[in-house]
């Protein structure tokens, strides 16, 4: 048994040419233990998918090394491919004109499964993932949720030792997302079938599923530990959630106030409310913020002290939330 089933050392990946080079990964070193569910948590553009693409042999690193199951992803790509599978959220590989079962049979052949074994496996997976009634439905007619169930079933057809899940619940309704998460946890933990690398920008998903989480931003790993340990480190830092009745206001002044460690903002067009998550050096800072909001004539609807979440860990490390990081990256 390998101690680390996945290992990357100083992984660097750049895109573009001479005068326009973007560094997507900047010296990423991670180790994933066998049987572990490991999460990569970060905003869009942080480098999560780039890591997955390198580990699944779809992309070459610019420098550094990466191993899956003890095999180099560069020099022994085919050995790596024998033990992995990949499921990406928001995508449904397959042929719309074929039925779910036909598609799954086709994908099973990419791993050389004898037809009888494949058909048995497809039957079991469609039952386990609760979409047996759609087995003879054309893929094009499936809803997003059922397409994603089919995608997960496809990813499990070859009993991979290493399953890569790239934003697997993207765009899914709460119940379907929960169903898929539970299934993956069962697969990896209760049935001990394999190791999982999950990328997500849903904090709750990482919190619920992962044994360990690496927080990634701008191609760098900022922290890596169990969700509990990461949150534990914030116990001494007061955190407050402040709801303000405006989605137009500029709240960037909070970030600049003395004693503020980090601040994130989520604007809801439906409710017209901006939820600020503020992390401070001490509780007195919150009073200063309230005064400043009053000065700016912004109506505060509520203020509550909250328990730390993984989002707070990210705010503590980067100084802002995912949304602001993505806005900055897109600007």
């Amino acid at each position, binding site marked *: 048994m390998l101690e680390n089933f996945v290992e990357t050392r100083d992984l660097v*990946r750049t*895109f573009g040419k001479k005068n326009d080079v973007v560094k997507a990964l900047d010296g990423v070193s991670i180790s994933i233990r066998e049987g572990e569910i490991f999460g990569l948590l970060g905003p869009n553009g942080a480098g999560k998918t780039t890591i997955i*693409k390198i580990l*699944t*042999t*779809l*992309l*070459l690193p610019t420098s550094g090394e990466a191993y899956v199951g003890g095999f180099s992803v560069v020099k022994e790509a*085919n*050995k790596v*491919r*024998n033990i*992995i*599978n*990949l499921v*990406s959220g928001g*995508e*449904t*590989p*397959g*042929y719309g*004109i*074929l039925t779910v079962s*036909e598609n799954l*049979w*086709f*994908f099973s*052949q*990419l*791993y*050389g499964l004898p037809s009888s074994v494949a058909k048995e496996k497809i039957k079991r997976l469609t039952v386990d993932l609760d979409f047996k009634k759609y087995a003879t439905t054309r893929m094009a007619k499936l809803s997003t949720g059922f397409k994603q169930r089919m995608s997960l079933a*496809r990813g499990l057809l070859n009993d991979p030792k290493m399953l890569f899940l790239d934003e697997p619940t993207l765009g899914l309704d709460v119940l379907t997302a929960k169903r898929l998460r539970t299934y993956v946890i069962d697969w990896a933990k209760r049935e001990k079938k394999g190791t999982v690398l999950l990328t997500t920008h849903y904090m709750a998903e990482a919190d619920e599923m992962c044994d360990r989480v690496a927080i990634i931003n701008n191609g760098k790993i900022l922290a890596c530990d169990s969700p509990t340990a990461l949150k534990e480190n914030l116990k001494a830092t007061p955190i407050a959630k402040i709801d303000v009745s405006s989605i137009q206001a500029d709240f960037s002044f909070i970030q600049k106030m003395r004693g503020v460690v980090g601040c994130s903002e989520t604007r809801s067009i439906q409710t017209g409310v901006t939820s600020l998550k503020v992390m401070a050096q001490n509780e007195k800072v919150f009073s200063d913020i309230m005064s400043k909001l009053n000065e700016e004539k912004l109506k505060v609807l509520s203020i509550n002290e909250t328990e730390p979440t993984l989002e707070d860990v990210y705010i503590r490390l980067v100084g802002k939330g995912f949304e602001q990081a993505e806005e900055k990256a897109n600007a």
Partner: protein
Amino acid sequence: MLDNLVLNLRVAYARLWVRVKGGNREPEWLVAEMFIPVLTLSAYVFMYRMLHAPPEFTGFVVIGGTMIAFWVNVLWNMSAQFYWEKETGNLEIYLVAPISRMAILLGMALGGFVNTTLRAVAILAAGILIFQVPFSLSEPVTALLMFFLTIVALYALGMLFASLFLLYGREAWHTANLFQEPVYFLSGSYFPTSSLPFFLQLLASFIPLTFGLDGIRQVVILNKGIADVWLNVLVLVVFIFVLLPLSKVALNYMENLGKKEGRLTLRWQ
């Protein structure tokens, strides 16, 4: 080694199965793919008859119209297929699997061949029945040999083009567009290439379909034998032996280049 061969044969069969199953599930496609080529070749037949061309020209047109179905299949359902596979996310799944990319292409080629043969037979039958083509065939084995060599050379060319689509999106699409009509013209789909000027004949000699069509017409319409078409056979064999290994090399090269440049799974480029 043997395991690997069995795996890749399974993959080729599965891809063939997808193509045959998918291609024949909706009968509207079948009707359109059979009816429209018959219309096109009818136009040429009527034109030749109006000009009082020799009767074998009708046979040339029917054979040309039948073989064009294979060229269209090679160009759009073989060469361009990786473009669609990329856009739908299937290419990523192929590339993550421990299989030869050539097995996928072989499956596509065989599936395309089966589907197109069904259509081609219908076009041929319609042409013969409607226009009473004066066939004169004394060496059916030679005719079959010419046909199969032409098909293998054409699909080998398709495999080579497919490697371009692995990396390039719209650019490759334009290239395929660029090839469609000139190949109709240069390969002499609806007239004998001997009527073309020398430099155009020279250009046409780079297209396997030119030699295939000419050979098939000589054997099937003009009642000639292997002694008359041996050069066509030789050229097609050379095409096959050059194009097949070249397509494998090109595919590997493009895949590696794509991995280096990060364009292998890049969409909407």
